[in-house]
């Protein structure tokens, strides 16, 4: 076997190794430098949409309200809880003494009060006992006066209410708020055409006719605001609603939507830029 002559000299191999090491160290240094930088990208903040809730106060007369309980007769009376209560007199007992086998046999122990009558019941333990009473009160009659709410109804109801079923009354309340939201979502007061202070005072009452298929069949402005711009906005809003479908009533009470609703379109909730 003969020895092969190397293609590279020892010096070239050493230089090559040094160069390779230098490159590795260089890369490592670059990595360290890159990691040490303070540069960072700031995320751009998204501009949030500005919420502009508008208040519309529809007055829906035909929906039944929870009925307030009342007496059968026509004479109006306040409920018991509001009735001015007469002062209740406190029954007092006159001090008296009765013979006792436990009494001390001393002159000082002789009671100063008069002797109690024979067979008289002792006063209750928490009774108020006085030396002398001016007026003897009679026992209160045991028969209690009947409460004012004899007719079916609820303390939280409305005087004009006709609905005695609390479940239905609640369903009506929820449905009314749904219709309110429906109108709220579709009416925008003309904030850029009327001075804000003036706009907040404006309101127009509308009678909206509802078709059998729950669509807005027509409308009449029963009480305009008097401001031509505001009334024109109300008119254009109502025009755009014709043919649109109102939310359906709850399935268990399909009859609570009548043939008309009466919203009141108001500028009171308008949020002006200034």
């Amino acid at each position, binding site marked *: 076997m003969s020895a092969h002559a190397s293609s590279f000299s020892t010096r070239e191999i050493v230089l090559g190794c040094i160069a390779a090491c230098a490159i590795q160290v260089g890369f490592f240094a670059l990595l360290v430098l890159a990691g040490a930088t303070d540069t960072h990208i700031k995320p751009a903040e998204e501009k949030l949409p500005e919420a502009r809730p508008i208040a519309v106060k529809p007055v829906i007369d035909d929906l039944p309200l929870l009925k307030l309980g009342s007496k059968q007769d026509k004479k109006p009376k306040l409920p018991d809880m509001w009735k001015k209560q007469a002062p209740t007199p406190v029954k007092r007992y006159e001090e008296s003494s009765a013979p006792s086998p436990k009494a001390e046999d001393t002159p000082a122990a002789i009671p100063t009060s008069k002797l109690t009558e024979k067979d008289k019941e002792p006063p209750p333990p928490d009774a108020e006992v006085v030396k002398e009473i001016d007026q003897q009160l009679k026992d209160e009659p045991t028969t209690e006066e009947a409460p004012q709410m004899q007719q079916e109804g*609820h303390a939280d109801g409305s005087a004009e209410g006709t609905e005695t079923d609390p*479940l239905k009354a*609640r369903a009506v309340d929820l449905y009314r708020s749904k219709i309110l939201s429906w109108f*709220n979502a579709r009416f925008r007061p003309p904030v850029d055409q009327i001075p804000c202070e003036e706009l907040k005072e404006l309101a127009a009452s509308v009678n909206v006719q509802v078709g059998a298929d729950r669509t807005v069949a027509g409308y009449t402005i029963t009480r305009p605001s008097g401001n031509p711009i505001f009334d024109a906005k109300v008119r254009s809003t109502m025009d755009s609603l014709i043919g649109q479908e109102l*939310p359906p009533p*709850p*399935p268990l009470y399909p009859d609570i939507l009548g043939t008309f609703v009466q919203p009141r379109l108001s500028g009171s909730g308008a949020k002006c830029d200034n």
Partner: protein
Amino acid sequence: MRQLKRIFLASLLASTSTLPALAQSKAPPADESVLGEFVVTGVVEEHVPKIAVLPSLSPALEDVIVRSVVRRDLELTGLFDVIDDRKAPPGMYGFNDPVDIKAWRALGAEAIVKVAARTHSPGKVEVLGLAYFLSVGQEPVYETKLVVSSKDVRVTSHRITDALLGALTGRPGGFASRFTFSGPWARNRRVFVVDSDGHGLMPQTDPQLTAIAPTWGPDQQLFYTVSTNYSPFRLNRLTPVAAPHEPAGTQPPLPVPTELKIPFRGSVYSVDFNADRTRMALAIAENGGSAIYVGNPDGTDLKKVSTTELATHPVFSPSGKLAWIGGSATNGSQRVYVDGKVVSPAGFTAAAPTFCDTEDGIRLVYAVAVGGNRQDLVMANERGQGTVRLTQNQGSNSYPACSPDGRMLAFFSKRGNEQGLYVMSLKRFRTQKVAGTWGESLRWAALPPEPSAVAGAPKKSPAAPAPSSEAPKADATKPADKAAP
């Protein structure tokens, strides 16, 4: 080979999720602004009633199950601000203990819900549901009591929730319900049934078959299409079986399907029934494309209603309108048609339409391809107007299905490495995963009323309008009332 190709094409048509992907590769990305704004409810304009679900101190398992299920259901609806248990005033919360109305009123509650359960007799459980309005007083405004088998406690809890929702809002809930869908199984697809809370997943078809496009038909039967050894898809029906109540329980045998004979030789891609199950719509392969036929549920008197070259995934609205996915094989773009009129925006490949009978009216929900091989859900009114977006930047969302009460929307979603069946409240747009399963052609229907339940008469029973048919929605309305002796 030819048969294999036909099966492949059929699968493509039935699984409409693949169509958006095909179209996506051809068409440039369209302007997504036409899909409507993303619904943000940061500002709550509508009043959200504050209610309390009374806590329970009972260690009994049935009581814990009933209370936790009802509370979760009520929270899931998004209809109420349910008061935190930690704020509950101290007191007794037993089965017969009175409710401290004054203390709960101080917490701002408008209504109180009390649910409890206790052992009635061996194997039987008594479940109680009460609702109080604080404006009315100490007496409950609604009360229902059911005696059921102890294995049915969870489903009964959903029924109690549905009844309580009916009392609180006038619209009964839809939690006593179940899903059906077709999902992958090795090289095939099987039809599955699972409860609305993700429990009781149960395959219904033979693993050797390719079963797709299930839906609920008359008599609570499942209708679906099935292919055996690459033969054309035929319309079948079966009565689904329930999963065993215990995880280690014995699996019941698979139900025996029956083929429904129809006067067509081509594959049946999809099937649906109207609300009262008196009309049936079928998507049938013909002339190299497909068409929608509508007829009787027994397969007779079928008449063609679609006009597009391709028509698949028919679905009826509660009011009787018919929607489907239509298009042509040449231009690739599939759009939603309602009663023959195109309603989905141009340039977006649409899929899997469904209708929701919501509190705000009937809504059309469908999936659209939005780029990146993803789909998102959009909602419009019944005529397809006023489109709003329901999902965005939340993975890929497909196959929407609405709950029987129209308050919830279920769909399959792939979010990163996670996938499953999700449920969204259409009131608050909160989403919750209910099962880790994945599939397609999702349908949601109410459970049949519990025939064996013994119910106490409700204190106040909202008078539901008489059901016109055997529609599942009617089944869900008054479980307690229906079961009353």
